[in-house]
Every structure is written in C-alpha cells, then in structure tokens.
C-alpha cells in the first residue's frame, strides 16, 4: 500500500478547503444581508454574469467565496442550472421600463428628457478617510425635483426610426417558448441574435470591457456614441397556467444602445441583469463591431463571445494548476527521441571521416 501513502489526496483537499473557509469564518444571515445592502453594484454585476436574478443568493455566493467573483459566478450558475423552468416572462419593451436613469449622448435633449438619476459620473473621487477615524460619512439629503420625472420613458430609437435615421428591422414574432436559449443549447456560429445578446448579457464584465475598449480605441471600424443608456426596473409579467397575465415582481436591468457614425447609422444593443453601465456600453459596442463586415479579429462574433464567457475562461485559466505530468512525459519522450536521433546521426558522421583518416594513415 506504500503506493498511495505518499499522496494522501483525500485528506489534503479536505484540509485545503477547511483552511479557506476558516479564513472566512462563520457565515450567517447577517453577513449575507450586509453584503446585499452595502454592495448592490457588486451584487448586480454578479447576477448579470451568473444570469440569475436573486440578490439574496448572489450575496450568499459572495459571502461563501469571500468575494472571489469568478467563484461566486460559478456557484450561482451551478445552482441556476438545477432549477426548473416553469414559465417564460412576457417581453419587455423600452416604454415599459420603470426608468431611474436614462441619458443620451447623441442629442442635447430627447423626448422624455435626459434623466441623470443615481450616478457617480460627476462626483469627485475622493476617499472619505475620515470614516476610518470614526467620522460617519452621511450622504447629503436629496432635494426632490419640483416636478418628478415620469416613471417610464419613450424609446429614442423609435423616434429615430420614424425619422428614417436608422433602419426599422422587422421584429420577428417568436413565441416566448421558442426563443433560442443559450443555457439549453450550445452556442454555434453564426449565432442567432438571441444567443448573441444572451451571451453578452452574461459575459464577464472585465473581459467585455477589455475587448470593447479595443474596438473603441480603433481595433474595429465602429466609432461609438451612446444613443441611449438606461438603468431601470423591468416588470416581470408571466402567464398563469389559467391564462391570466400577472406581475411576478421586477428586476433591475441596464441597457445600452450604441450608435455608430459610420456611413449609415446603425445600433448596437446590450442589456443585462443589474445595474452595470460599463458592461452594457462595452457589450453594445461589441455587438455593433461584430456585426460589421470584415470585423477585426478581436471583434468577430466567435472571438468575442467565446472569450468573454466568465465561467469558461476563468475555469480554463485555473485548470492549468492541475497536474499535466502525463502529457509532459509524452512530449519529453518525443524531444528525447529527437535528441537521440541527432546524437546518433552526429556519431555516425564523426565515425566516417575518422575511417578515412585511418585509411590515409595507412
């Protein structure tokens, strides 16, 4: 039994996990609540990448992984796949969104108005170090506007379509049940529009930014302008088996339209769970860039969608920690073979002139 004793894999992996969990300590409901309340944007980012809208579960995943975002996404995705699908919600149109923030860079003012809503865009990024000395950082109270913004806003793209500025693509009438679903079908290319948008919706924020940024900088022919950016609460309406349409609540969503200033005006689109502006702007730019003929290698559909998948890319990256000594041995054997061949050839070559010299000496 000496063979196994030197490895002891089972004990080792159990203790390794314990060490990790020991650092995090006991996880209780309080910690989960605190994460959900204090880190809503992180929870949002996670829910988007996990494609599972459940702030409590997302906060739990963050607690359980100590904030390792890729691990947290994997936890939620693995949970998500086991859940039954009992209904498909009704599609939501832009005017249905309870909009808290909605801006356009393409026009000074737009029908419905520019609504800044909650943002740090114009804040001075100063760390409030006083908090560490015991001074609470109390947010200044918000002064309500004289006239509250309407809860819903029209679609800017709809206005552009009536003006003939952008093409009015006929919307396909697809029954909700028949919408291609990336979580139940493999991604194949050319990807159906639904798969592409779903893939971008659950793409890694960092990866999407990296590729999106590369097209924005010029690796691609798209010169993006934010046509419309929205942070909203989307109503979730589903059909009861008896046929009644009812509200099952709402989810926070972000969506972005990017318009290009190329020969024709074209829109790129992205939407995701949670409020995550960087991701939807980058993703909508990639949507647009990857739809161009002869897209740059880094903004083709296949390249973008494969390489922004957070669970696949992070998993593959860390898998290189697994032992690879069999494959290495196999390669080693081939290289040694080549070396041995060369040595043998050199020896044979060296042997020949020597014979001639001997002959000469005779």
């Amino acid at each position, binding site marked *: 039994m000496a063979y196994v004793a030197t490895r002891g894999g089972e004990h080792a992996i159990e203790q390794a996990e314990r060490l990790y969990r020991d650092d995090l300590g006991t996880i209780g409901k309080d910690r989960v609540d605190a994460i959900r309340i204090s880190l809503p944007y992180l929870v949002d980012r996670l829910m988007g990448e996990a494609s599972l809208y459940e702030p409590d579960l997302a906060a739990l995943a963050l607690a359980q992984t100590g904030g390792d975002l890729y691990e947290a996404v994997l936890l939620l995705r693995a949970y998500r796949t086991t859940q039954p699908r009992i209904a498909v919600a009704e599609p939501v149109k832009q005017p249905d969104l309870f909009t808290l923030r909605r801006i356009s860079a393409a026009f000074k003012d737009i029908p419905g108005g520019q609504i800044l809503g909650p943002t740090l865009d114009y804040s001075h990024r100063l760390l409030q170090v006083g908090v560490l000395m015991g001074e609470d950082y109390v947010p200044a109270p918000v002064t309500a506007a004289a006239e509250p913004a309407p809860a819903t806003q029209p679609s800017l793209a709809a206005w552009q379509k009536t003006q003939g500025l952008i093409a009015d693509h006929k919307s396909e009438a697809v029954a909700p049940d028949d919408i291609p679903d990336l979580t139940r079908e493999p991604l194949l290319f050319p990807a159906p529009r639904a798969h592409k948008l779903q893939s971008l919706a659950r793409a890694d924020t960092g990866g999407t930014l990296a590729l999106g940024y590369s097209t924005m900088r010029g690796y691609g022919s798209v010169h993006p302008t934010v046509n419309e950016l929205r942070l909203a609460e989307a109503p979730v309406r589903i059909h009861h088996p008896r046929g009644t349409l009812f509200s099952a609540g709402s989810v926070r969503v972000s969506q972005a339209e990017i318009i290009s200033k190329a020969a024709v005006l074209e829109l790129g689109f992205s939407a995701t769970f949670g409020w995550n502006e960087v991701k939807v702007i980058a993703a909508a730019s990639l949507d647009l860039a990857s739809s161009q003929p002869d897209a740059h290698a880094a903004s083709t559909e296949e390249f973008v969608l494969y390489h922004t998948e957070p669970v696949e890319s992070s998993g593959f990256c860390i898998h290189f920690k697994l032992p690879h000594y069999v494959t290495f041995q196999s390669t080693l054997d081939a290289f040694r073979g*080549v070396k041995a061949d060369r040595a043998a050839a050199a020896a044979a070559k060296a042997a020949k002139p020597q014979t001639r010299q001997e002959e000469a000496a005779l």
Partner: protein
Amino acid sequence: MTLKDLTKPWAAFNYGFLDESAKRELRRKMLKAVAVPGYQVPYASREVPMARGWGTGGLQATLTLLKPTSVVKVIDQGADDSVNAVSIRKFFARVGGAVETEDTQKATIIQSRHRIPEEKLREDQILVLQVPDPEPLRAVQPDMSIAREMHGDADYGQLWLVLYEQLVKSGRIIQGSSYPSMVNGRYVISPSPIPRWDVKKLHQADHLTILSAGREKRIYAVPPYTNVEPLVFDDVPYRVEDHQDKTCYRSNVTGFFMNELPQDDGSSRHELSDSHFGVKQIRRNEGEAVEIAKTWYNNGRMD
C-alpha cells in the same frame, strides 16, 4: 391548473445533480455521438459545481449514465488519489450514491483525465475521457466554424502537413499527447491528451469510449470494435513513448507507461503511471492473491 402543478416537490438537487432536461439532452447527444463515431456533437453543457476545465464534460457524461448501482473509478494522470480525481469521485458518491472504486476491473464507469488504464477494459465497461480541447484542427484553424467545415469535407491535409513538417524539421513526429487519429476512416479526433501509448487502446476495443469537453461543449464517441488509426505516413511507423524497457521502482514491473521522477543526483526513477495497477502489483509481490486482468501491453508491446 396552478403554478405548482408545473413543478416538482422541492429538492435541493436532483439525483445525479443534473435535472431531467439536461440529462435528456445529453442522452440525445450521446446517442448521436455513438451513431457517427468521432464526430463532435455540440451540446449545451450546463454548469456543474466544478470549474470549467476541471472535468465538467466528463462529469456531465458520467452523471447522465450514473445509477445507484454504478461502480465508478476516477483517475487523473493515471492516479486515483490525485486531488481532483478524489474530488470528482466524491461528487459521484455525494449526488449519485455511486459506489467508489480504485480497481479498474470492478468499475462500471471509468472517468479519466489523460490516461487509459493498463488493464484491458471489458465490453460491459464505459470509459469517459475528459477533454480540454476536442478540436484536432485547432492548431491549424482556431476558427471553430471553419474547422467544422473542414471536418465536413474530411479536409485534413493541413494536419498531415503539420506532421510532415515535424518529420522534416526534427527527424521524427514530435506530437506528444492528443495524437490526431482517424476514427472509422472518416473523422479525425483528438483522443484527449492521453499519451501515444494509450491511443492504440481505443482501436477495436471491447468497450465504449465517450469523450466529453464541457468547456468547449462538444461530445464524441468511439464505439467498441471501431478503427482508431493515428495519422502516420506509410514509411514512418507510429511510435509510442519509449517506456517498454522502464521498470517501476515500487512494483518492479516493466513495460508499462511510467511517471518519471527526477532525482537529486541528476538521474531519474520511474513508477507506474496507472496507480492502482501499481498497487495491485505490489500486493501481489507481497504474496496477496490479487486478480489482475489482461493488459493491453505485454512485455512493453501491444501485439
């Protein structure tokens, strides 16, 4: 009807973790894989509670086959007690109530990363190989859509060219593991990163092999009694690793695939890569009555 009628009573997870719809999809795709040996069937590849790249493809195939009477062996680099193999095997017991084994002969399902056991598999056993990269054409064509067309046209000229270039440059083919191999005379597969030593075990085997790539979402199969031929030139024979004369320092057995262990003095020692095969040999040496099945290789050669 109520919403409740549409669902089942709540359970944290299904038997075998995967839900029925995931299993049905895998069943459909596995059958297609068997029907067209070597062809990579795309599948949805659900997330499982393990990171991508860590055997999630093999895991899904095994979970679909799993039943409480299954006896499962899991190996990584030939070893049953390699940390990730242990983790995967525990998972099968945890979500499937499967019996765990390290003995190749006792297993009904063998999930493996990078090795095929030295003992010959029987026709009632299924081998599930974990595949990191299912595409043998990746090196010559990273675009999967184009690679798919090439498979459709059986356009493997570029692969031959790569092997030929290796021959010209290095004097021999230096492809280590994942040696491209022709299945049933039609599709070239990557046999997963098993060493060249193991590729021959797939040819006209008694058992069914399922190869599953979770991250890349492709599944393919080598049915029993199917030709699996490494791509070689008529005048340059296929060479397995030069391990036929190596002796395992623990079990004193010669003629199987070995792990090389560098020593402080600059030399190397060797041990059997198939760890449980090694354990059995040691037990036999110590006088125990241990049953060891026929092996694919005898005296370092395969017929």
